C-alpha cells in the first residue's frame, strides 16, 4: 500500500497554513502527527495534491494558562504530553484518563490533540485498502452509492472513533478554529455534526488551532471507560466519559456523561445533567442514567464487535464510571 504522490508544504505560521489551505481547496489535507492521515493515505481514502504539515507552527504547541483561568491546549499538544501533564492530571483527570487509552505509546508520541479531534470517522466498509474497496464497488462515503451498513439508507453511519472528544465534551471544552476570516471559538459539542461523511464543522480552508478548558470545570472528578478487544492499539468499540462535581454532603452539583464510537459523533447524554444534579447517589438513579446513555447511542455494524454487545457495554461503563466518580473521587 503505497502513498499517493503529494507535495508536502511546511508552513511556519498559522496564516501561511490557512493561505495554503485556501489556495488548494479540496486538494489539500492537513497533517500533524500523521497517525490517522498516513494509514488513510496508504488506503487511498483520499489523494491530496498537497499535504499541509503544520508541525513546524510553534504557537500551536503546548499547554498554557489563558484568560479567565482557562487552560489552552495547542492543537499540536501530543497525547503523550497530555497523559504526562501534572496540571491536567490534577485539574482535568477525565482527559488524562481518555488520552491514556488512545492507540499505543508510539501513536501517542506522534498523535496530537487537534488530530484526535479531527479523526476520520471509521467503518468496516470504508477503512479498507483501495483494492478491497474496488472489489466491493465502493460505499456511500467513498466511490459508491450504497451503504453496506444500512442498505437503502442515504446517510453514512461511519462511527466517530476518538477517545479525547467525549472527555472534552464532559469538560465543556471549546475549540478554536482559524481560517481566512480570522479566529472563532465553538463549543466542542457544536463541532461534531453526527454525519459519517461530513463529520466536523471545519471548512476546507480552516484548521483547529487550540482547545480551551474552562476554569469552572477544573477539579471535576472524572473517568473514561473504553471498550476494545485488546488493551493496546485499538480504536474504541464504545466509550463513556463521565465528570461529576459532588459537594461535601454527597450531593451532585454538576454532571456530564458523553459517549463515543457508537454514533457518527461523540455525544453528550442530555438527560444526565438534568437527572443527576441536586441528587444523592443511588444505584437506581445511576442505572436510569446508564439507560439514557444507551438510548443516545446507536451502534451499527461498523466495527468487529456486535451492536448488541456495544450497547450493553455503554450501559455498564456509564454505570461503572458514575459509581467510581461519585464514590471514589478521581478513581
Amino acid at each position, binding site marked *: 500500500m503505497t502513498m499517493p504522490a503529494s507535495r508536502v508544504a511546511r508552513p511556519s505560521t498559522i496564516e501561511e497554513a490557512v493561505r495554503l489551505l485556501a489556495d488548494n481547496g479540496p486538494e489539500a489535507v492537513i497533517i500533524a502527527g500523521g497517525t490517522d492521515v498516513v494509514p488513510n493515505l496508504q488506503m487511498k481514502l483520499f489523494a491530496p495534491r498537497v499535504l499541509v504539515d503544520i508541525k513546524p507552527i510553534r504557537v500551536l504547541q503546548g499547554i498554557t494558562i489563558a484568560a479567565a483561568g482557562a487552560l489552552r491546549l495547542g492543537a499540536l499538544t501530543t497525547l503523550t504530553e497530555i497523559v504526562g501533564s501534572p496540571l491536567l492530571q490534577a485539574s482535568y483527570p477525565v482527559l488524562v484518563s481518555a488520552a491514556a487509552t488512545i492507540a499505543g505509546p508510539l501513536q501517542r508520541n506522534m498523535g496530537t490533540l487537534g488530530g484526535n479531534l479531527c479523526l476520520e470517522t471509521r467503518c468496516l466498509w470504508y477503512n479498507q485498502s483501495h483494492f478491497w474497496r474496488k472489489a466491493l464497488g465502493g460505499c456511500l462515503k467513498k466511490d459508491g452509492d450504497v451503504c453496506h451498513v444500512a442498505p437503502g439508507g442515504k446517510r453514512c453511519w461511519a462511527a466517530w472513533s476518538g477517545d479525547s472528544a467525549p472527555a472534552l465534551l464532559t469538560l465543556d471544552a471549546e475549540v478554536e478554529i482559524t481560517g481566512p476570516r480570522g479566529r472563532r471559538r465553538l463549543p466542542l459539542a457544536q463541532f461534531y455534526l453526527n454525519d459519517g461523511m461530513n463529520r466536523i464543522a471545519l471548512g476546507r480552508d480552516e484548521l483547529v488551532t487550540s482547545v480551551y478548558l474552562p476554569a469552572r470545570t477544573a477539579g471535576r472528578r472524572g473517568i473514561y471507560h473504553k471498550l476494545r478487544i485488546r488493551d493496546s492499539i485499538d480504536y474504541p468499540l464504545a466509550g463513556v466519559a463521565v465528570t461529576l462535581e459532588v459537594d461535601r454532603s454527597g450531593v451532585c452539583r454538576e454532571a456530564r456523561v458523553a459517549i463515543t464510537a457508537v454514533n457518527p459523533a461523540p455525544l453528550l447524554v442530555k438527560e444526565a445533567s438534568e437527572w443527576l444534579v441536586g441528587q444523592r447517589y443511588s444505584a437506581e438513579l445511576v442505572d436510569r442514567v446508564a439507560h439514557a446513555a444507551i438510548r443516545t447511542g446507536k451502534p451499527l455494524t461498523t466495527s468487529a*464487535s456486535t451492536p448488541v454487545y456495544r450497547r450493553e457495554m455503554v450501559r455498564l461503563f456509564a454505570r461503572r464510571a458514575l459509581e467510581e466518580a461519585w464514590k471514589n473521587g478521581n478513581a
Partner: protein
Amino acid sequence: MHVHRIIAAHDCGKALNPMTVEGQIEGSVYMGLGQALQEEMVWNKGRLMNPTLLEYRIPSTLETPEIESIIVESIDPEGPFGAKEAGEGSLAATIPAIANAIYDAVGVRINTLPITPEKILAALREKEKQRAGNDAPGTNGGSR
C-alpha cells in the same frame, strides 16, 4: 479478560540449545494466546472484513503475560542427539488451558474461538436462564 500467567512444559527430547527451546515455547504460547482470545478472520459473503493487522488482532506486548517455560528432556532414541521437536507443540495446549481457566473462573464452557467477553457473557446469561427455569418453574423467571 486478563491472562495473568502461563506456565508451559514441553517435552523436546533433548534441548540442543535450551535458550532457543524456551524461545520456541514462549512464541508458541503467545500464538496460542492470540488464537484463544483475539485472532479471528471475519468473513462476509466471501470477503475478508479484517485483512490488516489493525483489526486482525494479534496480542501485543501489553496483552502477553509472564510465560514460564519448563523444558522436559526425555531423550528420544530416534532423534538426533535425543532431540524431538520444539516447534508449535505448546501452541495447541495453550488454547484449552485458557478455555479451562475460564471455566474454572466463571463456570461456562466456550467451544468456539476466539473466546471473547461477548461469548462468555452470552453463555453466562444462558446458564442463568436455565438455572432460573430449573429452580422456579411457573414463577416469573427468576432473580433478574
